């Protein structure tokens, strides 16, 4: 009958209603998005894994001479390797080996935001000429970790690719690596990057990309984000030291035994030390010490409480907004319906049944909600936190449709 006339007549009210709805949907979307991310964060950081004690294992070879002497002894390095292997085999604890040794990369495709010093107190070196490569290079943020650490922090790849942990071998032709999500536009899966790892040139094959926002607890930072990092996996076991690679393997072995021990809460530190001493006796390596890391637990519980408080606060806000939206739209709806019913009464006098008029008004309302959906969608496209929320959008649309039906029902109460 007169959709265009209706739009023209009620335009300000229709736009106001659509805006109110779309803004509410956006707030609701952001709330769901936040709650999903919160759930993910809690699942990642605060699930059963957080109900643990964390200790830091560090070597005690602090004197340069002592350290150098140790590294030059193949026998000592073998003991160190055995110690690492035994730690990895576990017992009553899980050994998380993590280190952030920067990686000089030949002909690096990224900018200075990937530089080791970027975002820290250190200076950004940027690109430079590397004599070993004979080409331009850049010291890039890199993190190395073993399988235990990877699994403990529930790190996942975008495409679901997995690291062949058993096949990690720095003596091989290629080492599979994962890149942080920021690398998605720089490299592709299968690309080979040349990197200088502890003075050894490695061909690093891109096996996948980390999910955006992947993070670990590192250096007392609760969410140490890996989006700009190159993740190099550590092998499960250290094989025997070879003459040719003693220098490389010596440094690597020390880096690898520096990590965190995760133990159940009911396991006392005395029992843990006893376990470690047993490993030391078996392997012959004693030059380490154990540091309790209460900050981890304190920060974890603090962060968890902040997230949960925010969640409750946001839930309260969204509920209050929902009630507000219902009140505001009630008055807008009444306004629209009263104006609309002026025409409805004329149609009725001229011979249209109430049902026909209701059907027509249902179309008008559907346009209002479709407009709200359109505004929401345009804003959604511009959102930085876009996600797999197609299902949620469908739910929104259904809500709008139900709202339109509600409007029609509401009209039945208008007296004629």
């Amino acid at each position, binding site marked *: 009958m007169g959709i265009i*006339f209706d739009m*023209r*007549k009620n335009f300000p009210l229709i736009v106001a209603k659509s805006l109110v709805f779309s803004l509410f949907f956006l707030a609701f979307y952001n709330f769901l998005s936040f709650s999903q991310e919160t759930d993910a964060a809690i699942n990642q950081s605060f699930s059963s894994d957080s109900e643990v004690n964390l200790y830091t294992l560090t070597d005690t070879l602090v004197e340069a001479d002592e350290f150098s002497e140790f590294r030059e002894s193949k026998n000592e390095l073998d003991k160190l390797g055995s110690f690492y292997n035994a730690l990895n085999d576990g017992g009553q604890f899980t050994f998380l080996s993590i280190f952030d040794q920067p990686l000089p990369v030949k002909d690096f495709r990224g900018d200075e935001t990937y530089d080791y010093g970027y975002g820290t107190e250190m200076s950004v070196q940027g690109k430079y000429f590397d004599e070993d490569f004979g080409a331009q290079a850049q010291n890039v943020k890199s993190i190395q970790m073993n399988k235990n650490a990877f699994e403990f922090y529930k790190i996942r790849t975008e495409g679901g690719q997995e690291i062949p942990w058993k096949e990690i071998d720095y003596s091989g032709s290629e080492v599979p690596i994962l890149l942080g999500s920021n690398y998605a536009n720089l490299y592709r899966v299968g690309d080979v990057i040349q990197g200088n790892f502890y003075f050894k040139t490695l061909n690093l094959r891109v096996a996948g990309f980390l999910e955006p926002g992947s993070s670990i607890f590192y250096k007392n930072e609760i969410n140490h984000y890996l989006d700009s990092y190159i993740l190099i996996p550590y092998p499960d076991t250290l094989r025997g030291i070879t003459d040719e690679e003693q220098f490389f393997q010596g440094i690597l072995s020390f880096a690898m035994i520096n990590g965190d021990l995760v133990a159940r809460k009911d396991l006392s530190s005395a029992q843990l030390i006893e376990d470690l001493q047993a490993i030391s006796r078996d392997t012959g390596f004693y030059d380490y010490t154990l540091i309790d890391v209460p900050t981890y637990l304190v920060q974890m519980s603090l962060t968890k409480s902040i997230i949960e408080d925010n969640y409750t606060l946001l839930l309260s806000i969204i509920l209050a907004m929902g009630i507000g939206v219902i009140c505001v739209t009630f008055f807008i709806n009444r306004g629209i319906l009263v104006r609309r019913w*002026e*025409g409805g*009464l*004329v*149609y*009725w*006098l*001229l*011979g*249209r*049944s*109430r*049902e*026909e008029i209701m059907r027509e008004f249902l179309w008008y309302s559907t346009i209002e909600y479709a407009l709200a959906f359109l505004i929401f969608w345009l804003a959604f496209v511009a959102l930085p936190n876009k996600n797999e929320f197609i299902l949620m959008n469908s739910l929104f649309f259904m809500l709008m449709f139900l709202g339109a039906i509600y409007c029609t029902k509401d009209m039945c109460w208008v007296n004629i």
Partner: protein
Amino acid sequence: MIRLEDVDKVVVEPNGLRRDLFRSLNFSLSPAHSSVAILGRSGSGKSTLLKILAGLDTRYQGKYFFEGEPLLKNGATMARYRRENIGIVTQSYHLLSDRNVVQNVLLGFSGKKSIARAKECLALVQLEKFEKKSITQLSGGEAQRVAIARALVKNPRVILADEPTGALDEETENHILSVFSRLESEGHTLIVTTHNERVAGWCQSRLMLSDKKLVPQE
């Protein structure tokens, strides 16, 4: 053509009391009638009777026949009946202010709209030059004639007019009556509720609502 049989109608007053408005009311309109005036004092039920005749009010006891056939008293049936056979003119015109004159007249079509027919009806009520004029710019008499043109576009058998000159001055009233005369001559039947003696006098026959019934008046 139209017959109401034993109509009982109860209304609820604003103070909550129920009052019998009609009791065993009968009404019959034969093709021989060209115009009928329904008279009565305020509150006697003139407008309610007109709503019943238009099929706008179906909450009453009794039967409604059209051309000998009983009509079902449900909204859809009555809407169709009204659409096909009845034109309605009210005291407050019921024109849509967001449309111009011809757009309002076009509302009267139930199916395919014809601009030519709309213009023809506007000419019949002597408003041929008002097509594009906004409703808000019309006088009361002009607005009433637009409403008549709108009622006419579908060429209904019966035109129901509820106090059609109630808000108009004498000169404009004469205008409207001359339009009604023209409609009569074209074969339309008019049923007019009024308390205006001149309008009643103009009609071919008169019925008075009295004691909950319709009584012929000379």
